C-alpha cells in the first residue's frame, strides 16, 4: 500500500467518520449528537465519492443529510426546552447497546472478509446508466412493487398519526 493522494484522503475521511461516530455514541447532548451524525454521513458520502460511486454519494447527501437529519434536527428543536437547560440524552442501556454494536461489527467483518478482495478501487463511470437500466429494465416490476408498498406504508402512517384528531 503506497501513500498516494486517494489513500491519504481515504484515511482522513475514515478517521473523521470514526471520530464522528464515536461522538454520536459518547456525547450526551442531543444537538451535538445529531451534528456528529451529520458529519459521519457526510464523511461516508465522501468515501463513496472517493470510490467513484458518485450517485450513491449524492443520494446519501440528498436523502440522509438533507432529509432525514434535518427532520431529526427539526424534531429536536421543537421538543427542546430552554428552562431545563439543553436537552440531554440519558441512556441506561450502555453496556447492552455496546455489546450489540460490537457483535454487529464482528459479524460484518467476518461476512465481508471474502468480498473485500474483489474491490477494484473504483466503480465504472457509467454507474448511473447501469443503475437505471437495472431499475427501469429487468427489475422494473419489483421496483414498482417496492414503491407501491412504501406508498401504502406512508398513507397508513398518515392515517394512524392523524386518526385521533377530531
Amino acid at each position, binding site marked *: 500500500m503506497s501513500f498516494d*493522494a486517494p489513500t491519504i484522503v481515504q484515511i482522513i475521511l475514515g478517521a473523521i467518520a470514526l471520530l464522528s461516530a464515536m461522538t454520536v455514541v459518547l456525547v450526551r447532548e442531543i444537538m451535538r449528537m445529531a*451534528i456528529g451524525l451529520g458529519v459521519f454521513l457526510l464523511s461516508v458520502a465522501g468515501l463513496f465519492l472517493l470510490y467513484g460511486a458518485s450517485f450513491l454519494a*449524492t443520494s446519501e447527501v440528498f436523502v440522509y*443529510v438533507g432529509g432525514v437529519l434535518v427532520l431529526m434536527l*427539526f424534531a429536536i428543536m421543537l421538543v427542546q426546552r430552554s428552562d431545563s437547560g*439543553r436537552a440531554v440524552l440519558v441512556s441506561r442501556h450502555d453496556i447492552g447497546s455496546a455489546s450489540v454494536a460490537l457483535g454487529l461489527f464482528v459479524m460484518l467483518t467476518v461476512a465481508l472478509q471474502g468480498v473485500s478482495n474483489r474491490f477494484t478501487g473504483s466503480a465504472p463511470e*457509467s454507474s448511473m446508466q447501469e443503475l437505471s437500466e437495472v431499475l427501469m429494465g429487468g427489475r422494473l416490476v419489483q421496483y414498482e412493487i417496492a414503491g407501491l408498498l412504501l406508498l401504502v406504508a406512508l398513507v397508513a402512517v398518515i392515517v394512524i398519526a392523524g386518526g385521533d384528531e377530531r
Partner: protein
Amino acid sequence: MTGFVGGAVYGLAGGLVIAVAALFGVWWERKVSARIQMRLGPTEIGPAGLFQTLADTIKLVLKEDITPRQVDRPLFRMAPLLVFTPIAMSLVVIPFAGGWVPLNTSVGMLFFVAVPSVSVIGVLLAGFSSGNTYATLGGLRGAAQMISYELPRTLSVLAMALLAGSLAPLEVMNRYEWWWTPATFIALIVYFISSIAELNRGPFDIPEAESELVAGYFADYSGIRWAIFMMSEYGGLVAASFFGAAIFMGGAQGLPGVFGVLLIFAKALVLITLMMLVKWTFPRFRSDQLLTLAWKVLTPMALVQLVIVGVILPWL
C-alpha cells in the same frame, strides 16, 4: 498530488469568485432596488458606488465579533460555515463555458440540488444555538421552507435531465436546442420560484422576515460571521442563476470560448435581475401560504412538465 493542489487552488479561486460575486451582487441589488424605488442607490465610492460593498465588507471584517453569553458556542460558530460551504461546493458542477466544467461528473445535476440542501442544517443550527426566540422561529421556518422547496426544484431539474438524457450539466448544455426553452418553460418557472425560496430571498424571506423576526436566524450574528451569511445568500443567488442559465437556457452553447462565457454570464445576469425585481416588488408570503404554494402549485406543475417531456420524448 497534482490533483490535490489543483483542487486546493480551485477551492481558493471558487471562494474568491463567490466573494467577488457577492460584492457585485449586493451592489447590483442596491442599485436595482434603488431604481425601482425612485432612488439612486450608492453613488459615493467608486464609479456609480461600485466599491460601496467593498467598504461594507472591510468594515464588517473589522467589526467586533460578538458571541453572546446565552449561545451554544461551538454550534454558534460552526453555523455560518455550514451554510456557506455547501453553497460554495455546489458551484463546481456548473458549466461556465462550452465544453468546460470544473467537475465533470455524471450526477452533476443531482449534486447541484443535493449539496445546497445541507445548508439547511446550518440555518437550523444558527437558529437553535442563538438561544433567542426570533432566531429559533427563523431557523424553524427556514428549515421547513427549504425542505419543501427541494422537491419541486429537483423535479424541475429532472425534466431537463429526461429531455437531454443525461444528468451531467455539461451534456445537457451541449445537447440544448432552441425549442427546449418553450417546451420546458413550466420547469423554468418552477425552478426560478423554488430557487428564490431555497435562498430565503423575498418574497420568500420568511425566515429572516425583517418586519416580524427582525433578522431571523442570524439575528445574533455580527461582523464577519454575518458577512458569511450574506455571502452565502449572494453566492447561492449566483450559483442558482448560472445553473438555471446553463440547464434551462442553453448556457454558453453556440458561442466558442470567451464569447460563450459572456453569453452565459448575460443569461445569468438576466435571471439575477429578475430575482431582484421580484424581491423588491412583491409582499412576503406567510408560512402557510408558502407551503401551500410549494405542495399544491409548484409540485403539480413540475409533475405536469415531466409528463409533457415524457410525451415529447418518443418523437425525438
